[in-house]
């Protein structure tokens, strides 16, 4: 029977990522509480699980590497080493190494040896250093052992094609300890019988019960003769689990060079079922056999293999291909790899959540059957019952909707977990002391959102550590504690999740920002801006207050990218800052990307949905407020800014009720700091809509983000604010 375990690989990678997070988190804590045994055990278990599971999938590189870490962790557990900073540094780096190896294994790529190689050596040096005089560390790497300690002979392909029969005299005297471990002699004897013809004085089928045997202080011993074609090791393997608690002698009585004879034909007192050893295994690689035979050492093999040329190199040498062609082909291969990775995305869901969902579906089915029953013989007097049932259906649907969304929900702690490590690294690079406070880790939000906010959050944290917090000397001078604090918090607010990243640093510098913005031409020298408008300037493309680009931040990725990412998720970013007291960024994100809160608007007979997060204000303009500015098309003077106006009926060619803006309504929308006024006939109301992709079902339409099914069954389009702004620009270009 062959069982394919490869389908569990994605589960393995997912679980390993959790273990790595546990290790990282644990190591950081260990630095604060060295010698905490619980903590060490937890880290050890995580490393151990990765090692064990990696072996199961044949990721030996991961297994060996983790094994070295495990040795060091074990030394820490046993107080043979101290968890000092250099060691924690090494282990943290090694954790990154494991991560790299796992990623390589996942994409079938070769691991980056320039990183992993030196790390492996440092770990080895550390291991060897600690093992001096102690037990040998060379063994147990998971590779140089036979794959499983059981029947070692059975896993070996039978090397001799013509089996010769051997006869063994076996004397086995088990101690009661054997029985106490749940081993009955009949199992051993049957196993022997499966190897060949067994002659026994005992009646295998009628042995005493295990209870009786275990109670017997003088248990029976067994003397048998076995005639078998199997190797001696296989006979010994039968006693693998009992040899420590038994007296056992196996002597070869006589060797018969019997060729191709069926052992069953020989006289045997007991029926024999000879086990088949012909196993359909691929032959071992040459190197492995040579090592087994003692011809070469593993090191020699390794060295020889490392001299082996890669296919690409050989082809180039033989002029069969140019280096460019090889590079191109390799790139193609690499491009294919991540695609595969994306496919394997999976999610782990609490069984509890699924059970609740199943319950709800059950209720839904009941409601449905009640409704169809009602429909089958409906009379007008049953109208109240119908309404009641419909209310019930509505409740079921809403609950199921919530539960299904909950399936995709994950605690944000998964996204937070990388920050303790990041902050530690940033602190030591910047020469600052930083304390990171995390809260609200249990707050749940959509998996896609979690995956997408990692980078923006990292940027904000880097920003706080790099620019927000002052160097220790400045802090002391300002009467603040030497150690700066970065806080990250997550909480639900309405249908949104808020994530804050705050520091108790110097706060945003109003004058500096203004000066910089003027210098970069973002604003005019005499523009008057409120505080909030000034803070928003740091999100403008091409803005960076850092005077010198440091190692940790300012690598060309600005706050504008953060803002764009957040808005891409349908979120908002806000700043609160006070000079000398610190800055807090608040991200407000929708819980899920599949459903949005929208405002329904009407243009003639058509209904459109405007994402609520983008709406700044709705107004009825005074007659003449919408003016045509040369080169900019129609604009509205909205609080001192000229906002382009898009008449939705023109953009989408529908027959409106009003063509005069002062009769209709202008909805001011904003995204990425840009605004647009959209003219509609009427505001209808607010509702949640499920986004259906238009591109997937039809094609991309400018100004439309997607579609949804409205309450009356018709299709409504969801407006794309970014697209409308582009449309306004485009429109003016045409008009001008």
């Amino acid at each position, binding site marked *: 029977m062959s069982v394919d375990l490869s389908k569990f690989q994605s589960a393995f990678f997912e*679980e390993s990522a959790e273990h790595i997070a546990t290790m990282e988190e644990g190591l950081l804590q260990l630095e604060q509480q060295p010698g905490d045994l619980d903590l060490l055990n937890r880290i050890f278990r995580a490393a151990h699980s990765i090692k*064990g599971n990696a072996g199961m999938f044949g990721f030996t590189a991961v297994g060996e590497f983790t094994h070295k870490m495990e040795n060091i962790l074990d030394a820490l557990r046993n107080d043979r080493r101290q968890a000092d900073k250099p060691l924690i540094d090494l282990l943290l780096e090694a954790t990154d190494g494991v991560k790299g190896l796992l990623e390589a294994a996942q994409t079938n790529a070769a691991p980056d040896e320039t990183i992993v190689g030196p790390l492996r050596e440092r770990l080895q040096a550390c291991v060897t250093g600690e093992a001096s005089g102690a037990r040998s560390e060379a063994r147990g790497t998971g590779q140089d052992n*036979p794959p499983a300690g059981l029947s070692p002979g059975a896993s070996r392909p039978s090397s001799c094609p013509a089996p010769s029969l051997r006869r063994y005299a076996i004397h086995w005297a088990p101690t009661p300890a054997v029985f106490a471990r749940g081993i009955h002699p009949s199992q051993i004897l049957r196993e022997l019988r499966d190897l060949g013809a067994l002659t026994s004085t005992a009646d295998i089928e009628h042995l005493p019960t295990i209870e009786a045997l275990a109670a017997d202080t003088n248990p029976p011993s067994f003397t048998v003769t076995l005639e078998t074609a199997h190797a001696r090791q296989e006979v010994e393997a039968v006693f693998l689990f009992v040899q420590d608690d038994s007296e056992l002698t196996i002597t070869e009585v006589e060797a018969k060079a019997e060729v191709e004879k069926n052992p069953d034909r020989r006289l045997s007192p007991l029926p024999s079922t000879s086990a088949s050893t012909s196993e359909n295994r691929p032959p071992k690689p040459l190197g492995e056999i040579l090592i087994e035979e003692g011809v070469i050492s593993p090191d020699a093999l390794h060295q020889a293999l490392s001299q082996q040329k890669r296919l690409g190199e050989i082809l180039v040498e033989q002029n069969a291909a140019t280096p460019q062609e090889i590079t191109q082909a390799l790139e193609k291969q690499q491009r294919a790899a991540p695609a595969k990775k994306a496919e394997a995305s999976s999610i782990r869901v609490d069984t509890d959540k699924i059970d609740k969902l199943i319950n709800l579906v059950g209720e839904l089915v009941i409601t449905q059957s009640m409704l169809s029953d009602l429909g089958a013989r409906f009379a007008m007097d049953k109208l109240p019952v119908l309404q009641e049932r419909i209310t019930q259906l509505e409740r079921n649907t809403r609950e199921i909707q919530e539960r299904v969304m909950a399936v995709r929900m994950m605690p944000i702690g998964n996204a937070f977990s990388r920050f303790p490590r990041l902050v530690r690294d940033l602190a030591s690079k910047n020469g600052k002391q930083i304390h990171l406070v995390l809260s609200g880790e249990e707050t749940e939000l959509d998996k896609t959102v979690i995956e997408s906010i990692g980078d923006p959050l990292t940027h904000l944290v880097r920003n706080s550590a790099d620019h927000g917090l002052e160097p220790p000397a400045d802090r002391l001078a300002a009467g603040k504690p030497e150690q700066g604090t970065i806080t990250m918090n997550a909480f639900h607010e309405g249908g949104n999740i808020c994530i804050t990243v705050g520091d108790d640093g110097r706060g945003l510098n109003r004058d500096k920002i203004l000066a910089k913005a003027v210098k970069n031409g973002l604003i005019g020298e005499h523009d008057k801006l409120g505080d909030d408008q000034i803070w928003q300037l740091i999100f403008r493309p091409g803005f960076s207050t850092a005077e010198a680009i440091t190692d940790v931040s300012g690598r060309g990725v600005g706050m504008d990218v953060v803002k764009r990412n957040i808005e891409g998720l349908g979120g908002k970013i806000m700043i609160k800052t006070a000079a000398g007291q610190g800055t807090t960024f608040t991200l407000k994100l929708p819980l899920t990307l599949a459903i949005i809160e929208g405002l329904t608007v009407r243009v003639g007979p058509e209904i459109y949905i405007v994402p609520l997060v983008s709406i700044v204000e709705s107004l009825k303009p005074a007659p003449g407020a919408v003016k045509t500015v040369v080169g900019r098309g129609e604009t509205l003077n909205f609080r001192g800014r000229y906002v382009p106006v898009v008449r939705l009926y023109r953009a989408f060619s529908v027959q409106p009720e009003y063509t005069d803006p002062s009769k209709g309504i202008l909805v001011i929308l904003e995204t990425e700091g840009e605004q647009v006024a959209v003219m509609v006939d009427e505001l209808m109301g607010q509702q949640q809509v499920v986004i259906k992709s238009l591109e997937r079902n039809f094609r991309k339409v400018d100004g439309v983000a997607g579609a949804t099914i409205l309450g009356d069954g018709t299709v409504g389009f969801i407006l794309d604010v970014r697209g409308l702004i582009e449309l306004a620009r485009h429109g003016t270009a045409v008009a001008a």
Partner: protein
Amino acid sequence: MGKQILIVDDSATMRQMVSFTLTSAGFEVVEAGDGQEAVGKLTGGAKPNLVITDLNMPHMDGISLIKAVRAMPPFKFTPVLMLTTESDEGKKKEGQAAGATGWIVKPFNPEQMLKVIAKVLPS
């Protein structure tokens, strides 16, 4: 009739794999995430014909679990296999002293595991 096997491992991946292998081979599988949970299953009515346990686990490790199993009259003679990563003799000795019937060294393939199970499972 399928025999019942209790598999105890804190790694969900490992449990899934072992469970899948055993179910495919016709066994009925009960899972537990650590020693404590396993004891809960045993006192709660599970009647496994075999217990397979990992050694390194939170709350209650494998060795303690083996001792606990041996201390329960109904499971005094139930075969218990331990999963170990190392060929560490010490762990094997410790396990045997605690009452483990045998061991399976990780990494193993499904066929190897089924072979060891056949070796210790009373017919």
